[in-house]
């Protein structure tokens, strides 16, 4: 569960402090260009580090520096509560003169005030209290150290933190890109949802009981669904078929041919099952209302809020009135910035709550002035 995210000098986020302490579901609202999606991009950089990407140039570019400002480090700090331990990870990147790509200036992982490793430029110090040894070594300053430090065991704090980061789910689905074909298995869904079939296959291969969970949700939203089949096609690939029945008839449909909204139902079902079976997860969902009928939006958001509890956490960004109404002032954060050359400001809605109808105020553009 993220307690705090601090980002500095990354696109429109300057000295940006997002406090999510003890909030299991949070809504981000704000005008277009306020920085809602940029928060997800910052989180995605940390997610990709957890998933093994360590070349700095593959994570951030010089153009990601706020207004190209290269004299100030780009900084990410995340504080996460996992298994009653507080993990604090910090990564600062810099672009010295005559450098074409950013390099690591500082990196540190601290668990409950005990430093696991720290780094300044290329020099890494690995602290090992259990083994009583301290190791120092050099790492190419264009590489992030976290993915390449070897863990000792499954319970090693490094392992726990990296696994949590890798399993974070950041979604901004592009439904037409979601197909039923999978060539591998994964527990690491992509932002656009395009590897949903591989996520579905990976989830069921590790946790077969998740099928019942997924089917139960889908029956609620698609009442005439009978079941679904993940048929092998060729040596390595599978294709997802969905079978319907009702009124005496039956129909088998390629997952790829489902409507965009129905694909999003599947995505929701797999997300909810994933959180149940290998969570607690953190999820950022950019506009979960996309592709859904208005009658379904509120149900989905309420279900997400209710499912992401007990250590799991969901962060939602949306402009949709139905989504906005499903959150209260205490767990709604308003992002705003005056112009493209000024940074994003974040405030709880409870501080700026209008006296009249919230949606009317947002529609008039009067929420933050």
């Amino acid at each position, binding site marked *: 569960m993220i307690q705090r995210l601090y980002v500095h000098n990354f696109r429109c986020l300057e000295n940006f402090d997002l406090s999510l302490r003890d909030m299991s579901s949070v809504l981000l609202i704000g005008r277009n260009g306020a920085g809602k999606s940029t928060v997800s991009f910052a989180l995605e950089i940390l997610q990709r580090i957890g998933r093994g990407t360590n070349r700095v140039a593959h994570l951030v570019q010089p153009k990601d520096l706020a207004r190209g400002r290269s004299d100030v480090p780009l900084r990410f700090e995340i504080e996460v509560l996992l298994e009653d331990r507080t993990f604090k990870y910090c990564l600062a990147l810099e672009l010295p003169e005559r450098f074409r790509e950013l390099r690591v200036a500082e990196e540190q992982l601290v668990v409950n005030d005990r430093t696991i490793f720290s780094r300044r430029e290329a020099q890494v110090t690995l602290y090992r209290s259990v083994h009583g040894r301290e190791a120092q070594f050099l790492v190419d300053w264009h590489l992030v150290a976290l993915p390449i430090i070897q863990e000792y065991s499954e319970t090693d704090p490094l392992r726990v933190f990296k696994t949590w980061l890798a399993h974070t789910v950041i979604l901004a689905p592009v439904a037409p890109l979601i197909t039923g074909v999978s060539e591998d298995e994964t527990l690491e869904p992509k932002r656009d949802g395009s590897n949903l079939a591989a996520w579905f296959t990976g989830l069921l291969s590790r946790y077969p009981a998740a099928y019942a969970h997924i089917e139960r949700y889908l029956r609620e*939203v698609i009442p005439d669904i009978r079941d679904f089949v993940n048929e092998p096609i060729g040596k390595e690939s599978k294709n997802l078929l969905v079978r319907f029945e009702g009124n005496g008839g039956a129909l088998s449909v390629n997952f790829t041919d489902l409507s965009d909204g129905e694909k999003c139902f599947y995505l929701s079902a797999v997300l909810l099952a994933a959180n149940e079976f290998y969570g607690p997860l953190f999820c950022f969902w950019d506009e979960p209302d996309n592709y859904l*009928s208005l009658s379904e939006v509120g149900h989905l958001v309420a279900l997400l809020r*209710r499912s992401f509890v007990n250590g799991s956490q969901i962060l939602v960004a949306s402009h949709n*009135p139905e989504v906005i109404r499903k959150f209260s002032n205490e767990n709604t954060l308003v992002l705003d910035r005056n112009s493209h050359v000024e940074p994003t400001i974040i405030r709880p809605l409870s501080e700026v709550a209008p006296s009249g109808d919230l949606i009317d105020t947002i529609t008039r553009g009067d929420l933050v002035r």
Partner: protein
Amino acid sequence: MSASAYRPHLIVLVEDDAARQIVNGFILHPNLNTRAIQVMRPLGGWRRILDTYREEYLSSMYYISGKKGCAHRRLRQ
């Protein structure tokens, strides 16, 4: 494809934003079927709730259940 219309369900007409937020807390209860409850936008006053209930919902409730709307009788009292 919503399945709720002909199943037992509850439509909540909320008076104002404070009432909406109270209902938001209520629907997070784990024993509640979220699909059986639909919270509508704040109507801005009790009088508007009564009018909306009579004009938009009462006839369909009577039609679906086939029984007289006892809630309606209570409201008139």
